């Protein structure tokens, strides 16, 4: 299979931290000439339900997606899930567990801000905060600005919210992988060289990480990624080949929150699509 094939299997809507609604992102996908895509909101499936309800027959091929934030003793991971049944119990269990951990942490932070600094919030605002799909530090920071407890969200986070480190409860990578597999989906490690966003994992460390997750049932690596250089991309694809894994391509588009263009995956830079990506596309082209 030769390029050009325009696909993008990694993007976020307002269901998590993107700025485009599912309707808006579908319009952008149509305009960008993308032939196959997936919406991968953090720890949430609502975006996929929304997209499925508005797709028409002439629209690009759509694959259900999600990006789970995971952690274990070895570090943090983002695990993408593709092609799962959103109604599958195993998927809902992972989402609900992650959401519960997140809510517990928000509550703990609010308690800390109240007891340490005397920052109080109305019950109505707390209820709205906890009703969000992905409440976290930025949302608490915005609320503090609204109450004039801090001048900016950044100050709120660095000066107050980060004042204590909570022992986080996280979904483990094997739980996310098992949930995706249980829903009939394909678990894929997102941006493998970058961990959960700030790390740099290359060489033997990356190989060891992939091998460990493959033992849990991981089926693919995001080899084409908007933030990867040629060197990193080639390293990831080589590891995917070694473990006979799928290769996926994603931009990690977040709308105006990050300056990433939809469809920017690096796939345009290669003359021939790697075998792992070809196999991945074929799985869903046949559906």
């Amino acid at each position, binding site marked *: 299979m030769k390029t050009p094939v325009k696909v993008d299997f990694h993007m976020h809507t307002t269901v998590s931290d993107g700025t485009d609604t599912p309707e808006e992102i579908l319009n952008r996908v149509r305009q960008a000439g993308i032939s196959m895509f997936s919406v991968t909101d953090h720890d949430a499936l609502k975006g996929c339900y929304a997209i499925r309800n508005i797709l028409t027959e002439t629209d690009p091929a759509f694959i259900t997606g999600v990006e789970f934030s995971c952690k274990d003793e070895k570090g943090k991971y983002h695990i993408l899930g593709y092609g799962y049944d959103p109604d599958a119990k195993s998927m809902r269990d992972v989402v609900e567990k992650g959401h519960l951990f997140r809510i517990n942490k928000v509550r703990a932070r609010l308690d800390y801000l109240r007891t340490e600094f005397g920052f109080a919030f109305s019950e109505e605002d707390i209820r709205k905060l906890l009703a969000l799909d992905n409440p976290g530090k930025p949302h608490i920071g915005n609320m503090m600005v609204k109450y004039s407890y801090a001048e900016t969200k950044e100050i709120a986070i*660095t000066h107050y919210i980060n004042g204590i480190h909570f022992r986080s409860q996280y979904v483990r990578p094997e739980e996310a992988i098992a949930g995706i597999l249980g829903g009939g989906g394909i678990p894929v490690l997102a941006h493998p060289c970058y*961990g959960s966003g700030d790390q*740099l994992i290359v060489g033997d460390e990356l190989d060891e990480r992939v091998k460990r997750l493959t033992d849990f049932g991981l089926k693919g690596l995001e080899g084409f990624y*908007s*933030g990867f250089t*040629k060197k*990193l991309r080639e390293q990831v694809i080589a590891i995917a080949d070694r473990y006979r894994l799928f290769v996926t391509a994603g931009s990690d588009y977040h709308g105006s929150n990050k*300056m990433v263009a939809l469809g920017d995956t690096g796939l345009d830079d290669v003359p021939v699509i790697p075998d792992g990506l070809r196999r991945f596309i074929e799985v869903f082209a046949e559906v």
Partner: protein
Amino acid sequence: MADSFVKIALEERIDSFNSIKVEKNIYRELDGKGVVPVELDARQLRYISSAGLRLLLRLYKSYPAMKITGVNDEVYHILTLTGFTEFLTVEKAYRVVSLENCKAIGRCAGGALYRLLPDSLLRLCRGSDPLDRIEHERKAARIALVLGIPTAISCDVVKVVDAEGSGVGFGAVYQLPDARSFSEILAEQPDQSDRCVSEFAGMLKQMHATEVPPGRLPDMKETALRQAALLQNLLPEEAGGKLLSLLREVPDGNHMLHGDFHTKNLLLQKDSVLLTDMDTLSVGHPVFDLGQIYAALIGWCESDPGQSERWQCFDFETGRQFWRRVLAAFLGTDDPQKLKAAEDRARIIGYTRLLSGSVGGIYPEADQTSLDGWTNALLQLLGSVDSCLINPFPVSDGAALSFSPEEAHCIQ
């Protein structure tokens, strides 16, 4: 043009916490300017996470004429590891070292050697493209090290300034606690000369016994032929032709040659001998290294013996004795006739190198007396010597060279 770059300063750190804000600020500064060349000034940047790397890549996609300057060691390492240095112009922030605080150990072609701190040596590169030369030397040193030659690899590159603070070049720094050059040892501890001879010849043999995979290093024979070509206007036609002919007859070989093997480039660190200054590392026949050693120890100083003190730190007679003893140890013979024959052949290579270096501007300080002396000596040798081949005789310590039968021409 340097001033056409839009310069944007990066602050302390870029990570997932501030990368969106940093990116927005950068685009604000570039707003309305079109696709201009961009210089990111990273002198204040202490740390960059992968969120920062993604920012750089996005910016590069929008502004391909982008460079990042003043990068510290840690950030440079990350940019190298991730492949950014393969497509992005990245200029390191170099530590500045003043020669005021260094002790000169000796000069070498295109530079000089200094003791920087008690445990460091500084090899200064002057002239054009010093950074390229330093990088080339690092690569050559790694090749030698991988093939088993004990080699000092530079650990840092610094900008070198004089006592007034004016830039004089760039230097490679070698962390070598207690290391002393053979020049220093021969000058200060004459009783150590036996050991110096043995180690010097032993290292030469070890290197010449090392075979280099094809294509990794330049061929010294080609270099010598280029040097001889430079002398064709200087020598009578017949002599010039004979010189080329003698060099062409030297068998090709894949044995490692140093190319600038002399007493300042060999260090003794505790009980270990280390080679430095590997930028002329090549392959070919050992006669080329012997010729170069003669040039450094004897030829260079023949018309002005005081040069030896200034160049090698020891007197001319010490250099002459050292050369003869090294040659005997290397060839495994004390036979004066054989040594004389080998020396004459090495001298042809040595004088060719010195004369071509002077004609080509590598040794601008060579005076007319030296040029005349080298020319006359070379002409005399070309009239009496019919081969440039030297056979290293097998020696008892097992470090004998393994030449093909074609290469094994004995000295008669």
